């Protein structure tokens, strides 16, 4: 191709960061559940898909009511989507995990896969199996660079995605680090039996973990429906797979790891598309995963003592 261009490189970083932010938001749901109960929540991709559907419906609904202020749309949509999706997260834990608390680890894994298949078909029956699309709510952006050459373009939406991702992750870190409930979470993650003996209601903590993970997936879902504007009942599978990869890459069980893993994965895909061929983006992303796991079996930021499923 026609050589290296610095401005293109910058643009690809921006593209990668946007994609990575979304992966990171979903990845946190996987990593939190793993950190506390040591299991993978395979229904998480579907939870994200539900978040995206709710987001799209609320935004379309607000449009019908004549609400056009972007702040209002964003706040109302995020609130409703987090509420609805959070309750799905809670229900998944209540139905697929809690009754199987004492059973071998494979059992809840299978029941989570069951929930995932159920949710996919449930949305397919309720909403139809087709693509649902929406026109962008927030358009426009900034352009940098020579007027006659390649211009770097940063859309308002990309900035919004980055800002919201950072805000929610910061909020989550504060919550885990400073609040009483966050301390209980950390205690459960260290030693669930001991935490229980010391009077922590571990069932409640686990339920909270699922709800928090679902809430962040809802945020990702809303952002995706605003950014791409296309939703169907199957988007959860690929997004879930990518986010799970991001969580493992960063070190499953570690929240900063999930953020880092998401960003690294997003950048890797972006650069592979840019400097190799688009066909190779998944090859590069997953080769990177294998490489990292060979050198650091616990992922980039994982604790060495975490045991694997």
């Amino acid at each position, binding site marked *: *191709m*026609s050589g290296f*261009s610095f401005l*293109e490189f910058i*643009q*690809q970083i921006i*593209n*990668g960061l*946007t*994609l990575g932010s979304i992966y990171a938001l979903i990845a946190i749901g996987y990593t939190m559940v793993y950190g506390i109960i040591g299991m993978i929540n395979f229904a998480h991709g579907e939870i994200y898909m539900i978040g995206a559907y709710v987001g799209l419906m609320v935004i379309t609904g607000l449009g019908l009511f004549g609400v056009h202020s972007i702040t209002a749309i964003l706040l109302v949509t995020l609130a409703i989507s987090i509420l609805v999706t959070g309750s799905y997260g809670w229900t998944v834990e209540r139905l697929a995990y809690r009754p199987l608390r004492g059973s071998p680890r494979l059992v809840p894994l299978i029941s989570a896969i069951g929930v995932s298949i159920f949710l996919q078909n449930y949305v*397919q029956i309720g909403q*139809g*199996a*087709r*693509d649902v*699309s929406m*026109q*962008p709510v927030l*358009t426009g*952006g900034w*352009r940098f660079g020579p007027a006659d050459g*390649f*211009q770097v*373009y940063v*859309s308002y939406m990309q900035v919004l995605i980055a800002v919201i991702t950072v805000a929610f992750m910061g909020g989550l870190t504060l919550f885990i680090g400073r609040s009483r409930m966050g301390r209980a979470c950390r205690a459960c993650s260290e030693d669930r039996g001991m935490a229980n003996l010391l009077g922590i209601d571990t069932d409640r903590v686990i339920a909270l973990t699922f709800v928090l993970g679902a809430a962040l997936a809802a945020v990702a879902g809303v952002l*995706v429906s605003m950014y*791409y*504007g*296309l939703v*169907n009942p*199957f*988007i959860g599978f*690929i997004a879930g797979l990518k986010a799970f990869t991001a969580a493992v890459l960063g070190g499953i069980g570690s929240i900063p790891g999930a953020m880092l893993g998401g960003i690294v994965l997003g950048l890797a*895909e*972006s*650069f592979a*598309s*840019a400097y190799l*061929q*688009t*066909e190779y*983006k*998944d090859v590069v992303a997953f080769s990177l995963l294998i490489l990292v796991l060979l050198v650091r079996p616990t992922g980039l930021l994982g604790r060495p003592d975490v045991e694997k499923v």
Partner: protein
Amino acid sequence: MTNKFSRHILSAAVTTILLGLGSVAQAAEDTIKIALAGPTTGPVAQYGDMQMMGAKMAVEQINAKGGVNGKKLEAVVMDDACEPKQAVAVANQIVNQKIKFVIGHLCSGSTQPASKLYEDEGIFMITPAATNPAITQQKYKMVFRTIGTDDQQGPTAGKYIAGTVKPKKLAVIHDKQQYGEGIAKEVDKTVKAAGITPVLFEGINKGQTDFSALITKMKKDGVDFVYYGGYHPELGLLLRQSREQGFDAKYMGPEGVGNKDISAIAGPASEGLLVTLPADFSADPANADLVKAFKAKNEDPTGPFVMPAYAGVQIIADAIKATKTEDAVKIADYVRKNSFQTPIGKVAFKDNGDLKEFEFVIFNWHADATKTPVK
């Protein structure tokens, strides 16, 4: 006593079941079943609707005129979701239900594996939509199509690009599926023969939503024309994100993107998209009555696969009438040797099951989901 009693009940039950089976078998002989195999769910179900709509209309109208040889036609819709695996399952169902005629499948990727079963089991198949050339290159006896092929469609697009558009830098993108990649290769071949080498020939993933990296690359390379081989969901997003990034190349796609949903997804970015489609049969004055019948049912006859599906059913009905048999193998023979007057014109088939003549036309797509022929 109880023993004797239960034995009575048992024999009664067995008799009922046997009688029941008998009546089912009899009912099956009263109609001629035609399976309509295509996606009624999944991301490309819109095209399935066109196919089902056209075929059902034909079944209705033929039945209203008294059916075929005193029997009514019966349409049996089967959903393959455009998935090759599900298509094979559907084909097996068709074999098991002893249905002898199939209109479908729709996607080339699902038609290919299903066609093998139809050939092996002696089932007559007409696809109104699958355009990949490989389907009829298998030299099957039972497989036909009432649509053109990508080696007609690709060159039509390629010649237009090389002869009329004359882009400075051309990019060819496809979705790595049998249909999309097949047609992209045909376009690539045609423009290369005319002396234009695409600066980029790449595949994206089916279901991919983020194309920003690819768009940035095309923008940097100064691409001014993009040919996309694939279906509308991915192209819709590609158009939308291109406009967003300020990448203003013109796009062109095959009939798999020519669907109202492309405008729903891409919005204003779909204005000016070029699409190769079968000629708009609904504009043919000979079809005025048929178009009226569709409009009366509040259906849209302008979709590219509606009339080819109608034609498929009609060909089956005409062949059964003429041969006075429902033997699918004899019917395939008859169809190969004769010509039929249908809403897509007078059709005759080559030995491999392709139409002798079929024309693709280039349309200019508009943001309000309408289209106007180019030239």
